[in-house]
């Protein structure tokens, strides 16, 4: 009887070459394949084994799909490699402009006292927590050293509207400088809307400045999450949202929410509140483990699995509203779906490799320190200055943006070299977030099997893939519309009750 020789299996003739991909086991003996530019395909296990064993027949049903999606090539591989290289370059286009988002933390003062505040705001009063005009001028100088043809300037706090005079002077100074610079510039103010007045609105309109606000859900939830004297945060948001829309235009103000322990039981109510107030998008964000969110324990009150349950329920409600004719999209899903369904980069700094901290976005803090990201400055407010890149008064552009701190931060966010990420099928859609892992696990590389960042993204990505292949044509069309920006599909039913 002939014995099997495991050491030297017969080598099959390579009728095709495999092109780079990674795989993930799925349910029911299926395998998800994702190539290096984000194209994906589901195979049943026998087809997968045949593919990787180089014995998939040209006549088999999946062969042409795999060839068209650049998982394999037969004949001259040059064309396929050239196509993949072009796609890869497009995918990494966020690298070409370098730092495009510049955050000015003009004050730490705030009239709210949110227990989940990640930036360790201080009570209203006291100009020592404000950015000086000299610091602002140096920050503007540094911003214009960035080679990016488009610059987004975001004013943050605290509550930046408390220093509207400073916003105004920075905007005017930037516009003046830009007469010779010729960049495309966009201004955004992240505000709780409470201090908004008519004079501010007139200026915002004149200078086409966008607003981004916080709305955590219906009034009882919002006011519990975001306390202020008078317990009227939600009422102020609603009132000033209407004024701002009337003055600036409906689409000039967006909102995002933070998920607290209280929010977990109210996914439908939160989505419904966004619909009631006429928003066409909602950003479902988990709490970040920085600032008061840590000191008050708010960041530790729920697990990632609880957030994922909440997220899935909220997404179901969003789909339900769309199905019945009210367009509303979820922003985090939209970013991921753009990566899954289009070849384009999203410029969302947390979900890219290398990560965008410092090279996609940078923060100028009120006292002049420069941080690689908002999270890096939140960490600094907690006494950890690991990701401080320098100071606008003491360091040059080259020292800040070419220094060892930023170089090592970027190196630790290259997924292709991170344990647990380098072989993950979701790599083209994900990010490394070294600052989160430094904060939660003590080192920027992190331990993926216990990483909340990894668990959250894996959970959401798996859910999106499940929905995409569910056979529900409406959901596929809806997700495609979010990814591509083409109009949403027709409604199917009446509005939900």
């Amino acid at each position, binding site marked *: 009887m002939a014995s099997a020789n*495991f050491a030297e299996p017969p080598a099959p003739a390579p009728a095709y*070459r*495999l*092109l*780079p*991909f*990674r*795989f993930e*086991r799925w349910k029911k003996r299926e395998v998800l394949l994702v190539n*290096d530019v984000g194209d994906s395909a589901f195979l049943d296990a026998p087809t997968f084994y045949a593919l*990787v064993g180089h014995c998939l027949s040209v006549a088999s049903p999946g062969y042409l799909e795999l060839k068209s999606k650049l998982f394999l090539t037969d004949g001259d*591989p*040059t064309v396929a*490699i*050239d196509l*993949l*290289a*072009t796609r*890869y*370059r497009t995918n*990494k286009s966020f690298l070409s402009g370098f730092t495009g988002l510049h955050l000015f933390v003009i004050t730490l003062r705030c009239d709210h006292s949110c227990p989940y505040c990640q930036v360790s705001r201080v009570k209203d009063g006291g100009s020592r927590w404000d950015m000086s005009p000299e610091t602002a001028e140096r920050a503007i100088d540094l911003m214009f050293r960035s080679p990016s043809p488009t610059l987004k300037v975001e004013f943050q706090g605290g509550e930046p509207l408390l220093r509207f005079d400073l916003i105004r002077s920075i905007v005017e100074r930037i516009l003046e400088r830009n007469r010779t610079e010729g960049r495309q510039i966009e201004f955004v103010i992240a505000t709780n809307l409470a201090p908004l007045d008519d004079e501010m609105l007139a200026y915002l309109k004149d200078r086409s400045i966008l607003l981004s606000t916080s709305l955590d859900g219906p009034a009882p939830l919002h006011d519990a999450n975001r306390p202020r004297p008078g317990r009227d945060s939600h009422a102020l948001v609603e009132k000033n949202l209407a004024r701002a829309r009337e003055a600036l235009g409906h689409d000039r103000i967006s909102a995002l929410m933070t998920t607290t322990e209280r929010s977990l039981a109210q996914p439908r109510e939160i989505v419904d509140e966004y619909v009631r107030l006429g928003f066409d998008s909602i950003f479902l964000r988990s709490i970040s483990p920085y600032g008061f969110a840590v000191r008050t324990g708010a960041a530790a009150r729920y697990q990632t699995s609880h957030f994922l349950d909440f997220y899935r329920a909220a997404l179901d409600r969003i789909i339900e509203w769309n199905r019945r004719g009210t367009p509303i999209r979820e922003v985090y899903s939209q970013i991921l779906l753009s990566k899954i369904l289009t070849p384009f980069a999203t410029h969302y700094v947390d979900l890219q490799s290398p990560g965008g901290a410092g090279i996609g976005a940078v923060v100028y803090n009120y006292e002049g320190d420069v941080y690689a990201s908002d999270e890096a400055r939140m960490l600094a407010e907690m006494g950890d200055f690991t990701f401080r890149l320098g100071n606008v008064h003491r360091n040059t552009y080259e020292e800040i943006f070419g220094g060892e701190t930023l170089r090592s931060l970027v190196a630790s966010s290259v997924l292709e070299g991170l*344990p*647990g990420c380098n*072989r993950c099928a979701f790599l083209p859609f994900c990010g490394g977030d070294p600052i989160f892992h430094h904060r939660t696990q003590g080192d920027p590389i992190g*331990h993926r*099997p*216990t990483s909340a960042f990894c668990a959250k993204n894996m959970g959401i990505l798996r859910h999106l893939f499940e929905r995409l292949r569910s056979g529900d044509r409406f959901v596929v069309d809806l997700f495609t519309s979010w990814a591509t920006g083409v109009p949403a599909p027709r409604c199917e039913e009446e509005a939900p009750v």
Partner: protein
Amino acid sequence: MTDEVAVTVDTTLHSRRAIFEACYKLTGQNFVTLTRDPGNPNLVVIGFRARKDALDPSIAGIFANELIDQEIRGALDREMAPIRELIVAQAFAEGNLLDSLREDGDYSEDPLGIGQLR
């Protein structure tokens, strides 16, 4: 209920990298130890103990399947590495690494033989 499970792996069948990758992936739920079998240097004993709660009763099977997946990933990495590197290099290269004639060739010499097709 078992609170510890040991799995023996033949290192002549499985690569060191696949063994470590499979172990690493399971370190989220478990404490994982690796020791050589004192009686046979080709065998390594992988021990699993739950970090909290109870050990998954399927842990041995989960590990065995993960080990095979990691072997496949390793084989694919080896096979795809040259093309993967070429794609990345081509994506960011100033010139054309796949066909230098496309960038540097002299049309009058007809290096692609297009004129001969007429």
